[in-house]
């Protein structure tokens, strides 16, 4: 049973179909990534799930609650980092006051409010800045503060729109680690919108690719590759003359493509299980010194571009 289940979820703004019959299932405790170009419908999906928008058609369930029938309950169990989260804080309130205000609105028990704020601000390395107005913090620090706000009431489901945008690499890494640890420790479910493909590949259990309001493909990276019938690539790292290695590789009829790197070749092979050893023998026989011969992981970026270019249809 999924923690987030959408059923034909659709949203229209006038004549514009922002979301068109979207079906997504996100299991409890998993990290789900929604990928897509600008205007694809990612933020609309998040806004529908956190009950900010009402669906034009279809519905969704978050935890036990339907977003149309029980919007208040849905909001109780979700934590939201909106798009451009760093701009959504009260600039005239201090970091502490921003969190205290939302803690009260989310019914965090009074006796726990200070402890939770201290814990989160310390983790995000903002405790020293707790008395600074949010408007005086850098964009990165504001983004971290907005994340603290989303986590404050320990929600079952977190809807995060570009959570690491505006963060430096170190802070982004900490946030990624936090997401993974929370998903594991508290079984929290994460629904993440992102443009950052390597980030999604690193932390998400499942991925969906959305464009023009429609889900084009969904699954794990491996499943996406399978669905796209993407060719497995192999990396052959050699010592010495790379051009010679290239010409020998190309001379084999079963080699479909060869890309040349600094000290390696990226090769696609027809029927690799049958022909890999033949290629390796051919290279060795020609005096090419092979250092490594390995399967190349198809990057999410390649798959993403392939789907958006029509491969997923």
């Amino acid at each position, binding site marked *: 049973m999924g923690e987030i289940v959408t059923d034909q979820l659709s949203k229209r703004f006038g004549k514009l179909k922002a979301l068109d019959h979207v079906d997504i299932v996100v299991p409890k405790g998993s990290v789900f990534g929604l990928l897509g170009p600008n205007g694809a419908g990612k933020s609309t999906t998040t806004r529908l799930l956190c009950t*900010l928008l009402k669906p034009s058609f279809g519905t969704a369930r978050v935890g036990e609650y339907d977003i149309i029938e029980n919007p208040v309950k849905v909001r109780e169990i979700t934590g939201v980092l*909106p798009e451009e989260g760093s701009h959504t804080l009260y600039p005239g309130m201090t970091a502490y006051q921003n969190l205290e205000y939302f803690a009260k*609105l989310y019914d965090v028990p009074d006796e726990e409010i200070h402890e939770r704020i201290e814990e989160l601000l310390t983790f995000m390395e903002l405790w020293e800045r707790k008395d600074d107005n949010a408007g005086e913090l850098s964009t990165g620090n504001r983004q971290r503060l907005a994340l603290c706000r989303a986590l404050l009431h320990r929600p079952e489901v977190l809807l995060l729109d570009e959570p690491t945008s505006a963060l430096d690499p170190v802070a982004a890494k900490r946030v990624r680690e936090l997401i993974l640890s929370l998903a594991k420790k508290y079984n929290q479910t994460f629904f993440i919108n992102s443009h950052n493909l390597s980030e999604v590949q690193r932390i998400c259990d499942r991925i969906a690719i959305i464009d023009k309001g429609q889900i084009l493909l969904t699954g794990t990276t491996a499943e996406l590759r399978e669905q796209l019938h993407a060719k497995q690539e192999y990396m052959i790292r050699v010592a010495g003359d790379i051009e010679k290695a290239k010409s020998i590789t190309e001379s084999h009829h079963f080699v479909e493509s060869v890309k040349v790197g600094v000290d390696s070749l990226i090769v696609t092979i027809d029927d690799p299980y049958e022909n890999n050893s033949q290629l390796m023998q051919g290279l060795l026989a020609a005096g090419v010194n092979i250092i490594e011969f390995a399967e190349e992981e198809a990057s999410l970026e390649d798959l993403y571009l392939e789907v958006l270019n029509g491969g997923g249809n």
Partner: protein
Amino acid sequence: MAQSKSMLVALADIRMALKLKMVKWSLVLSAAFGPLMTIGLVAGPVLVFTGPELNLMIAILMPMAAAMLAMFSVIPATMISANALVGEREQSTLEPLLCTPLTDRELLWGKTLSSVLICGAILVLSTLASTIGIAAVLLGAGKQLIIFPDLPGLFMLAVVAPIVLFAVVSLMIIISGKVQRVYEAYQMSGAIILIFMIPMMAPIIFSPSGVVDPSMIWMWNFVSFLLAVVIAVVTWAIAFKQFNRDSMVSLV
């Protein structure tokens, strides 16, 4: 719990509103200008006129002063409520607030309370300041004491003004789902305050003999009251019915 959450929203709105220079100055000017005008209108003629002329002036100016004081007290509500709704959206702080478990009722009460608390306080303090100020000027000049507000004036300040205040906020809730900028909201909601022009001007305009009849003052006060009630009830009903997070967010 519902009440306390509304109060939390109201206090946050007040805190944020007081950070804005425009709102701060509007509060200062309303709080100062209302009593000063009232003292001038009521105590001034006593210092200059005597006999029947004074009675005529007082009869004309007492209702005008009460309505003016009420108007000055309600003006800041347009700014506070515009900032509490449209301003929050402009600042992008509305979206996280709408994501909290606040019900629509709690949210709207909170947004209403922020204006009611501040303008209510201004209304009470301005009335007290005017009463004391007028008494001080007259006693200081050795003139006969006039109690301000008189009964129709008290009705205007204690009954009509809070209803108009309520109407201003509920109109702002309706407007907030339709406009994108704070200044547009200011302009549109300000029109309701013109209700106070009725008790200010109508008794003079509609007294052909030039002598203001006290019963006419009551009548026009009552017309203002009825108009304010109708506008407040209609706008509040529409505001509650039409308010939805969808339209607020779609305008972002």
